[in-house]
């Protein structure tokens, strides 16, 4: 097995009496596309929050490229190369799609930027346009994001998360709120764009068809613990996963 890009060892987190994570040990190799499944409250988002520095785990360590990043801030995790998208898109609502990307490209990683250099420069404009093309949202460039349909918002959210070229991206329910017909379109776009960027992907998903089609590997969570971890077919057909996560017999994963 190649050296892990991300490794968690015995992560634990409780909120009062609620156990959101308990002894979560997973390892993700560079280039993998990992699907994360689990019922609501299984600890998927808590896992994303801990890995990206939004929450500090009560127990355990997080290693990224072999370095211990446990307890780092969101800014430090971002600088290390772990980015994320959100279940509810986190955008700049008063600005257009193009302006959202321009702002993202321009401020990315700037802790102490030179004050005399304008943010709007040919390079930043070009990069913002390139990202729009890559995620196929250029048609909405001049639309304010509070007037966008949900599918475009989700794409923009992921595009903004990819600004700065992360080594790893966590997608929190990339297809939630998108109609069944659009799901595969959106996810296909995203996975194509992510593959071409070479980022390692970990995506949280409720739709087992989507998981089956796009994941190289699946991790199932239940009540804060890892219930199963392995090849998609193996995990999706695991009786415990069917009982607690899927709630029905999954279709055969297709080859994608």
């Amino acid at each position, binding site marked *: 097995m190649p050296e892990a890009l991300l490794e968690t060892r015995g992560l634990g987190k409780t909120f009062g009496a609620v156990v959101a994570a308990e002894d979560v040990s997973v390892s993700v190799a560079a280039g993998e596309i990992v699907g994360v499944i689990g019922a609501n409250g299984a600890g998927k988002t808590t896992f994303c929050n801990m890995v990206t520095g939004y929450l500090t785990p009560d127990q355990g360590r997080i290693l990224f490229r072999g370095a211990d990043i446990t307890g780092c801030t969101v800014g430090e995790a971002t600088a290390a190369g772990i980015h994320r998208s*959100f279940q509810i898109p*986190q955008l700049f609502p008063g600005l257009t799609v193009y302006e959202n990307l321009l702002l993202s490209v321009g401020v990315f990683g700037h802790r102490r930027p030179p004050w005399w250099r304008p943010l709007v420069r040919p390079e930043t404009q070009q990069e913002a346009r390139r990202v729009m093309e890559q995620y196929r949202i250029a048609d909405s460039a001049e639309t304010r994001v509070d007037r966008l349909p949900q599918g475009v918002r989700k794409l923009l959210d992921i595009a903004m998360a990819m*600004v700065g070229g992360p080594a790893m991206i966590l997608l929190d329910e990339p297809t939630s709120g998108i109609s069944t017909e659009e799901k595969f379109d959106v996810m296909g776009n995203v996975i194509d764009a992510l593959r071409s960027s070479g980022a390692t992907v970990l995506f949280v998903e409720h739709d087992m068809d989507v998981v089956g089609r796009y994941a190289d590997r699946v991790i199932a969570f239940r009540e804060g613990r890892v219930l199963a971890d392995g090849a998609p077919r193996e995990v999706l057909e695991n009786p415990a996963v069917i009982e607690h996560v899927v709630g029905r017999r999954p279709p055969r994963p297709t080859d994608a």
Partner: protein
Amino acid sequence: MTALRNIRPTTAGIVLAAAALLGLWPLLPAWAAHTAAVSLGGGLVALGLMILIRFGLVSFGQGLFFAIGGYAAALANQFLGITDMLVLSVAGIAAAGMIAWALGYIVRGHRGIFFAMLNLAFSMILFGILAKTVALGSTDGFSVGVPTLLGVAPGPEAGRLTFVLFGFIVISSALVAWMVDRILASPVGYAGQGVRENELRLRYLGVSARGAVHLAYIMAAKLAALGGVFTVLLIGHVTPEDTAYWTKSGEFVFVAILGGAGNVAAPFIAQTVFELVRTFALQYVPEAWQMLLGITLLLVILFLPGGLWSLVDRLRGRDA
């Protein structure tokens, strides 16, 4: 002013405005030159508030830093015998910068009404201290000598507002406005839009929202302090009521909203309008000048929500 692209550097406009003011000096009657210089001083404070407004923040206590600048210059003049306006300005900016750096750790975690009122609280504490300090003249304050510049002292017959002081105020204000203009167009300024629009996303772009607010707070404080130095040098006297009192802070917010956040020129224009309205209203309708100011603000909020500057944008055919 929400659109991103409306921020563009206006170097030429700033140079022109400064040159025009300097060129007009021989033609300006004394009261007009004084009004212009005082408006630049107050406009600097409003310019600092404009930076905060870009971050979606407002401070009801900028009088704190206005007073710190004014008192720092006055103290350095009175007790250390420093008369050089450049040194006095640096002293005011340095004092405010250090205090804003320290207070920034308290305010940077707050937003909205809490941010606004925390600053009001700090300014009221300073007002109380200044008003009770007998060595500083308590509520009467104390006077400040005539300033010099690089060894150039005005002749005995010259008034307080010499061409040297006027020129110094005009050129420093222009320089500062130019710097603020660049800063607002740089990632530092745009981070303010990020703070206003969505802090969570900004953090996930690797930018510290608190750090950005802290930086903006220090910048606004330094601008207010420089405005305080200029005002004290122009008036020749410093009192707690004319600097740190909460009504003074209210005036600065008034001016910032009157001008709008569209351009660095806006706060200076608004401060000039404010000074003119006050001067003429006090002369002709002394009992009603606050009413007049109130009506002015009401009309601006109702018909020009982007402030006076949105008139300029409208003339240029752009969305405000």
